[in-house]
């Protein structure tokens, strides 16, 4: 009994994907199709994981305007990238791209998230607002450290970091893509089994606990899941701060429901749809390269301001 709105979203996404694959297919068809397939898979993975991660984060923070990037997740990623290049030099860093690079980045992201949030959770008395404040402070710290490291760098290393700092949908790393998809499949499995308890967790810590939910353990697990999903999205294309916010706002206004069984697939589909449709329009219609990220950030940032002004902070 799939929801009708989800089916419509799925059909739209399939249409957008087909358009992306087959529009203007000329020359060596097999080769171009393969390139486009890899790109499509990356777009789907990034859109879906950004959407799902943001919905999950808004559930455990009981706040509709926060995104994982506010907690400093992508700033941590940038620091990691810069640190890698600074530590190993340009040549060394380019050698560990691909699967080992992705594995390393994801592991460090997960480890950092675990260390940060277990210590934060026990110290801030499970107060999510204090935690978010700490996240903002950490984000600033990560960014400052990143800037500091970049000052110390050689120009050749700096250009390499620059290339990784901005979201780009060309030049997808295939082995990282496979690893990301595997990680997402694991996350999806967990969510299929546990989406109901998330509905209760969205009530807040106290009500959820008095309904018998072991909230603290659940919150920690969800934070790890968010860290994993954010690393998939950021490792593949770089930081996209406002995509998640755009996606969750659309998912909420479309589904009008608290149920994660509806919200999570809707967010995944909408995220993927925005990226695939946007990329198709930009590449095939406007013949532009790598400007989609800018447009998404612009629209998302505008939405963020509108939500702030209209006072929809909750």
């Amino acid at each position: 009994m799939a929801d009708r709105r989800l089916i419509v979203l799925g059909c739209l996404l399939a249409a957008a994907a087909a358009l992306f694959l087959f529009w203007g297919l000329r020359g060596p068809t097999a080769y171009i199709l393969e390139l486009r397939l890899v790109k499509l898979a990356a777009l789907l993975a990034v859109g879906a994981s950004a959407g799902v991660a943001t919905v999950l984060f808004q559930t455990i923070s009981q706040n509709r305007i926060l995104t994982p990037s506010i907690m400093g997740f992508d700033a941590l990623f940038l620091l990691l990238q810069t640190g890698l290049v600074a530590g190993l030099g340009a040549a060394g860093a380019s050698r560990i791209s691909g699967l080992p690079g992705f594995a390393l980045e994801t592991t460090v992201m997960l480890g950092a998230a675990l260390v940060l949030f277990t210590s934060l959770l026990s110290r801030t008395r499970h107060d999510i607002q204090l935690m978010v404040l700490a996240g903002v402070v950490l984000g600033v710290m990560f960014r400052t450290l990143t800037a500091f490291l970049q000052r110390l760098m050689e120009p050749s290393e700096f250009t390499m970091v620059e290339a990784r700092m901005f979201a780009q949908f060309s030049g997808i790393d295939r082995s990282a893509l496979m690893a990301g998809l595997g990680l997402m499949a694991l996350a999806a499995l967990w969510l299929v089994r546990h989406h109901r308890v998330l509905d209760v967790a969205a009530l807040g810590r106290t009500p959820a606990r008095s309904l018998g939910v072991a909230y603290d353990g659940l919150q920690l697990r969800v934070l790890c899941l968010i860290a994993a999903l954010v690393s998939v999205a950021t490792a593949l294309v770089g930081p996209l701060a406002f995509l998640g916010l755009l996606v969750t706002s659309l998912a909420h206004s479309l589904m009008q429901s608290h149920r994660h069984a509806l919200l999570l697939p809707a967010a995944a589909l909408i995220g993927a749809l925005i990226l695939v449709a946007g990329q198709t329009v930009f590449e095939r219609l406007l013949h532009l390269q790598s400007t989609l990220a800018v447009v998404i950030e612009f629209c998302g940032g505008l939405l963020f301001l509108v939500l702030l002004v209209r006072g929809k902070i909750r």
Partner: protein
Amino acid sequence: MIDISGLSYGPAANPILQNVSAEIPAGRVTALIGPNGAGKSTLLKLIARQMTPAGGSIRMDGLDLVQAVPAVLARKMAVVAQHLSVASRVRVRDLVGFGRWPHSAGRLGPADHAAIANAVELFDLGGLQERFLDELSGGQRQRAFIAMAYAQDTDWLLLDEPLNNLDLNHARNLMAQLRHLAEAQGKGIVIVVHDLNYAISWSDHVVALRDGQVAFQGPVAEAATAERLSALYQTPVAITRLEGQVFAQYHR
């Protein structure tokens, strides 16, 4: 019975609760009364296990509350907090349905739907059940949360200042329903109330707190006397009888 012994909470130099021992009878309505800052809500939250005591023990029908597993507790007692807000867009009917979580883990069966319908009916939410929580008034939202706790179908029901947002009609109905639940279904009800008249006329038992300690406790008829209440609140309280009803007169 809830058996509280030697309970303390807060820093040792400046405790919020200090060596509190009390017995709250099963199947009765018990009111926690006392002036502001006496520790009523703290005591209720400790019983509800929303906070961990610094010392002492609480046993509910022989079950040690400090050790108990959340999932077991959720079938034993339901709690209605004082400040109720929900970020996600939840409909009233779905909120009441959350009360069935301890029994169904989110997969609602026929028995669960019957319990939800019963709770909706009992707390006068029939016309509101398709509305979103953020579209309701404070009192309506409060009733929705109380209905959720009722749907939880527990032996004990804990309510922190449930009358705060309610108008005369709904406040009176709520107290009548709580009494009915205690008498007909044998549920133990513990409420924090500020209005002495509601406490005296609807509850069986009172536990009076002052400065984090038990001032007095016992059945209403014995415990709530003019001298004790005046001393408790440090203001003159007169007890009068009118047409068979007991009134606390303190407002002028």
